[in-house]
Structure formats: C-alpha cells, structure tokens
C-alpha cells in the first residue's frame, strides 16, 4: 500500500485506449449476436461484457491503482454476487418441477402449463 497510490494519475492516452477497446467490444458483441452459435451466443455476449466491465473497473475506476483494502472490497462485492447467482441458479436447475397442488390452479399459473 504505497503512499502514492491515491495520487496515481492515469494518462489521457490510456483513457482513450480504454475508450477504443470498449467501443470495439460493443461492435464485436453486436456482430457476434447476429451469428447463430446456439447456446454459446449468451456465453460469448456475457464474456465480452465481463471484459468490458473489467476494463472500466481497472482503469476508469482506478481499481488497478487502488489500495489493497479498496481492492478487497471490490472483489468481495463480486464474491457475494457469485454466491447469490451461483446458489440460486444451481437450485433452479437441480429442482424438479413441483407437482400440481390443486386441480384448479390460480389464473396466473394456467399460462405456464
């Protein structure tokens, strides 16, 4: 944790490079969406979005130059997010559909049949 970490000045050149990379990522994600990759379409789209997010956090938000303590807070946020998404989605994918409880399900459920 260097004393200088709070004073790190990112150069406009680097900011411009990140801007270019983000615009390129946007172009790629639109082009990739038009190709039929089956279930991999969504994987690729999220991969590109995650790369773009990482660039924003590291450089625009100075994550790369933050103190270790701040970096820990950033990582912990995504760690908790992963717990929420991971545990909920494993539950949804592993759970068997519930047997119908009543012969006349409420109107809102009818559409799902």
């Amino acid at each position, binding site marked *: 944790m260097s*004393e200088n970490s709070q*004073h790190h000045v990112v150069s406009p050149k680097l900011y411009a490079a990140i801007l270019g990379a*983000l615009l390129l990522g946007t172009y790629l994600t639109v082009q990739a*969406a038009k190709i039929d990759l089956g279930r991999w379409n969504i994987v690729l789209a999220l991969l590109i979005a995650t790369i773009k997010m990482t660039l924003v956090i590291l450089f625009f938000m100075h994550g790369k130059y933050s103190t270790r303590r701040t970096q820990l807070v*950033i990582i912990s946020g995504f760690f908790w997010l992963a717990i929420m998404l991971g545990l909920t989605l494993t539950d949804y994918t592993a759970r068997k559909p519930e047997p119908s409880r009543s012969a006349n399900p409420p109107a809102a459920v009818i559409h799902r049949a």
Partner: protein
Amino acid sequence: MHRTGELFGQYKTLDQQKETATLGMWIFLVTEILFFGGVFLTYTINRHQFPTAFGIGGNMLSLKLGGANTVVLIASSFTMAMSVWSAQTSKKQLVTIFLILTLILGTVFLGVKVVEYRDKFVHHLIPGNSFDVTYCSKNPAVCDLSGKDLDDEVKEIKEGIETEGGVTALNAHAQLYFSLYFGMTGLHALHMIVGAGLLLWLILESRKGRFDANYNTPVENIGLYWHFVDIVWIFLFPLLYLINRHLA
C-alpha cells in the same frame, strides 16, 4: 463547513482521509452490485423458463437505438474519467468542460430512452390491458415494418404462438419480458437521473474552482458512481437487446 481539502480531526493524513472516502464509495457500490445482481437474477430465471417469448420480446427492441445509446454511455464514461484527470492535474477549466460534456452525453442517453419508451407505447408493448405482442405483425405500417423485416416478424410470432401453445400464453410471457425490460431499464435510467443531478452540482462547484490536484474527492467518487451505472448498461444491452438476434 465548506470542504476544500483541509484535514479533519479524525484523520492522520490527507491520504487517509481520501482513502476513507473512496472505500466508503466502493462499499456503497457493492450494495448496488448486489441490488442490480438480484434484478439480473430474476431476469435470468424468467428468461430460462420462457426462452421463446423473451427472444421475441428482445427482437422487438431497436438494435440501432440501443447500440447508439451504448456508445453514448461509454463516451460519457470517458469524458467523466477525463474530468477526473483534469482535476488531478489542476486544469480547473477542463474539469468543468468535461463535466458538462458528461452531462450532455448522459442527457442524450435519457432522451434516446424516451424515444424508445414512446415506440413501445405505440407498438402496444406496455404491460397492461392493451398489451399485444402480435400488434406489429398485424399493423406493420404503424411499426414501420415492411419487406423482409415484416416477413420475419410474422414468421417469428407464428412460431412463438405454436411454441407457447396459444396467443394468450405468448402474450402473458412476452408481458413478463417487457415488465422486466421496463423495470430494469427504468431502474438504470433512475440511476442516470440521480447521476445527472450529481453532475449538475459538480459543475456548479467546479465553476468556483474548487477541484484541483489537492482536492478532487467529489469528482472522483461521483465518477465511480457514473462508471458503475455504465457497467450496469454494459450488461443490460446484450441481455435485453441481443439475446435472440441470430434467430431474427
């Protein structure tokens, strides 16, 4: 008390004072990550359950407007980062200029969003009594549909009705998509409006020449917020607009 970078009693150094502010901002942003995470999770589960209706809904959004807005928002993140750089290097006038540019780009984003929302009203895609996902395929002139686009739309709706087992079911699930669309983009737009208000305040303060290399914590922390809102859109765009484009 007018804060211009003096050291408060509870801190040892200015560095420590500034890091405390940055850390606090990030802790707030972590709560925002989890808040939007829950919304994204709701969307994922529903989309998983009704892929056909969600795909049709997604293809009814304007790729042009959504894509343009993505570019606008990324550009606004760049100008925001540049205003932080201007403050760090004590270029006081540039701080104001870049903040104004950021506010303009943010406003353009919200303006485009208004146009998109209006189209959804005209196309009968607002959840409620008049919702009808087949409206555009029946009234192509109102939705500016013709030629191949119209053929694709009619075909997509026909297949959707078959897959979902009736037009009622398709409408119910497409309505679920549009409820989530308005909920998610609405929450995002609300964050943008709050950000625009914060930017306005920053601009007024910056004109007084308050931000320089010695003191720029508000510019940096509102910048962090602005970049976060940009990140949310970076995920909203592919998830809402691009999911089934390859089938269109």
